[in-house]
């Protein structure tokens, strides 16, 4: 039997970590779909119809799974975090209600028209429905991130005690809902969604381009995949640098508003100046494994780097150490490593974008097999980076559920028993693993079937030449 607090936290972690995959796919695909729909309607070029239809299939599946997993999350506030919901309901419930009415209604109704209605409605209404669906996904992020950013940097409220229970009262809605944190979060999140989808598209397209141009299979739709690869690369060239430049600003804001989280991101225990930015750091003794910067460690760092990051350019800036705070620190190793992995991936994506851009410019995009492999290997890394970023955000906020106002341990439903929480936790681990497996299976089938109007790879016999022939020498039949 797991403690209800631990079980609830784990359950929330599992369910959000799975949920966010689908919004990332749908929010990231939305601008592409609007573009494809527009081009399809305006140019009558079959390529755009193929692009629209193919990526709409993936969008539709992502949306369905996003919906069923999202409802669970909304209900979990009430089922598992009842004390939190009672305390914060006045500020927190409003955004969720508005999210439902403003965003989910828009996207879920127009999705019906967008997915099933091409033949039934006019071109204009069809285009409007693509915009409505896209706008809906982006608006839902507005409201959920307003709610989350308030938990990170609460403002515009007053704390009272009613019937022995702390209650947060809204006094200034503008201050409460439009915190500076919200802007950072929204830009960082939405850009990361487009970036992740670009990587996904590029990876899938690179696979087919590679099969055709490098490996020598004849891929019937290779023109479609070449176009996809180029569109994805353009998006990658825009979003990858933006993500990193913006992330740098964001880190500074976190330093100013959540110093304890920042100290955990950098694993700084004692207040110091000229703190290095460790790229890797290992404790020298195994019992310090969970504590990457315990006294003795082996590390490789950029001198003054962390101070520089915190202050926006001053390598000598002071960082308050974790020992200075009254509350126990968050799990430092998780935050420290997740942050490093996210940042590392951010730089890797820039490298990929420039590499692909350079090859394209030199006219070698289709032949560079190493680039293709790198893109294939990176197709899911955008989503990985998003998960890591959220882990930094949410685990780094611990032990608070509302920073400085309410501890996570106080937010759990008072009547919840360990048995109940364990049953649902086990159920969710099972159901969500199955869900992810099914989603992967369906998306893989859609990808293997290829765009409509082309050959279905599942039915095409394996026409790969004798494997003993070196693949590079097989001429591609373009």
């Amino acid at each position, binding site marked *: 039997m797991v403690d209800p607090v631990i079980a609830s936290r784990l359950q929330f972690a599992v369910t959000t970590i799975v949920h966010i995959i689908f919004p990332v796919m749908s929010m990231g695909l939305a601008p592409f779909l609007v573009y494809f729909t527009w081009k399809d309607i305006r140019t009558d070029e079959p390529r755009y119809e193929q692009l629209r239809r193919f990526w709409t299939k993936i969008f539709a599946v992502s949306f369905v799974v996003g919906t069923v997993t999202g409802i669970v999350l909304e209900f979990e506030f009430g089922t598992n975090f*009842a004390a939190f*919901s009672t305390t914060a309901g006045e500020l927190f419930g409003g955004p969720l209600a508005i999210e439902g009415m403003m965003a989910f209604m828009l996207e879920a109704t127009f999705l019906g028209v967008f997915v099933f209605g091409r033949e*039934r409605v006019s071109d204009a209404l069809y285009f409007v429905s693509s915009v409505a669906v896209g706008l809906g996904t982006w608006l839902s992020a507005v409201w959920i991130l307003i709610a989350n950013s308030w938990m990170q940097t609460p403002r515009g409220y007053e704390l009272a005690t009613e019937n022995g229970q702390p209650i947060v009262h809204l006094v*200034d809605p503008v201050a409460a809902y439009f915190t500076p944190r919200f802007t950072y979060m929204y830009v960082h999140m939405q850009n990361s969604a487009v970036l992740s989808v670009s990587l996904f598209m590029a990876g899938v397209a690179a696979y087919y381009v590679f099969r055709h141009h490098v490996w020598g299979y004849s891929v019937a739709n290779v023109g479609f995949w070449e176009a996809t690869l180029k569109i994805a690369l353009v998006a990658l060239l825009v979003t990858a640098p933006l993500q990193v430049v913006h992330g740098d600003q964001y880190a500074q804001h976190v330093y100013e508003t959540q110093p304890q989280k920042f100290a955990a991101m950098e694993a700084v225990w004692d207040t110091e100046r000229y703190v290095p930015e460790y790229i890797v750091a290992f404790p020298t003794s195994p019992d310090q494994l969970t504590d990457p910067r315990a006294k003795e460690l082996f590390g490789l760092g950029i001198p003054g780097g962390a101070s520089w990051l915190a202050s926006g350019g001053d390598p000598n800036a002071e960082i308050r150490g974790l020992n200075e705070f009254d509350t126990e620190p968050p799990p430092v190793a998780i935050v420290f490593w997740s942050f490093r992995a996210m940042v590392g991936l951010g730089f890797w994506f820039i490298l990929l974008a420039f590499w692909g851009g350079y090859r394209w410019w030199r006219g070698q995009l289709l032949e560079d097999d190493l680039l293709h492999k790198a893109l294939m290997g990176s197709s899911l890394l955008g989503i990985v980076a998003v998960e890591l970023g959220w882990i930094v955000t949410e685990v780094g906020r611990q032990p608070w559920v509302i920073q400085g106002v309410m501890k996570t341990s106080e937010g759990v439903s008072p*009547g919840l028993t360990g048995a109940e929480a364990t049953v649902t936790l086990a159920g969710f681990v099972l159901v969500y693993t199955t869900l992810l497996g099914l989603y992967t299976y369906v998306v893989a089938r859609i990808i293997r079937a290829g765009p409509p109007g082309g050959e279905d790879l599942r039915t095409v016999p394996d026409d790969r030449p004798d494997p003993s022939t070196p693949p590079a020498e097989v001429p591609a039949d373009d």
Partner: protein
Amino acid sequence: MTDLGTLATEPLFGLPLPALWFALLFAMLGTFLFLDGFDFGAGALFGVREDETERETVLAAIGPFWDGNEVWLVVFGGALFAAFPSVYADLFSRHYLLMFGILGALILRGLAPEMYEQRHDAAWQRWWGRAFVAGSVLAPFLLGAFVGNWLAGTERSFTLVGIVVGLAVTALTVVSGTAFLRVKTTGEFHDALGAYGLPAVVGYLLAVVASLGALWVTVPGLRAALVSVPVLALVGLSVLLAAGYVLALRRDHDLLALVASAALTYGLVAVVALALYPAVDPVTGATVQSAIVSTLPLNLMSVGAALLLPLIASYFVVLYSAFSGPAQPTEGY
């Protein structure tokens, strides 16, 4: 500090906002139970029809709609959270396992059609077909049980009242599902569907009577409310509506039958709301006045809802008019 004028201190236009939000909540719940109800009912009927084309037609009929319909549940949850946060927290955590049962059923119902369409081999479709039926039947049953327990003010999740109200809601979804599918079909399938209307609506009325009886016996505090004029009037009206529904189906006035089933659904929800009011959560004794959020967030929410609800209605008009007329089993992307 933003200047808020009287927004922070006085109810918008002096309206009785707590009572209005209570009514709005149940209107949202009713809308969900009607709109997604016919999807659930269609799912139940999917289970009793064997023919492949008929089954495909059922899926095509609800395909464009169910997602939008289901959002009414999300909106109901959000509005309950926003207007009566402590009730939301107490109710949902009290019926912890029941809530997750509902969520599990909704996951099955949402996922299964998507999976069913993916592959066309018999075993695969048999299992996803079963999952779809199970989700479609369990979701309204457990939701009904939740509403029954809420009204009865019980701390336990699995009760007699819960079961009979659950059965009533499930039967009601078959009532509206039948009417909906009749609107969306033609020919033999359309005619065959007519046979389900009468048993479903009779079953519904019997379950309602059983629910009222169970409430009468187990919750003495509710007796006065149950024999109040509005509740009795609504029950009487339901009997008339049920008769009208059967007649409408007989004469192929399918849309009229669908309207009658909508009226039945809102009638049931209205009975619950009337029997509850002015309490919102009998277990804690919370009333509409005591559990409502403070004036400022309530006013803001009211402005938001007043602006958004008409817009939402227009989305539904666009959606339902784009897909009016019979469903084609082959429709998609």
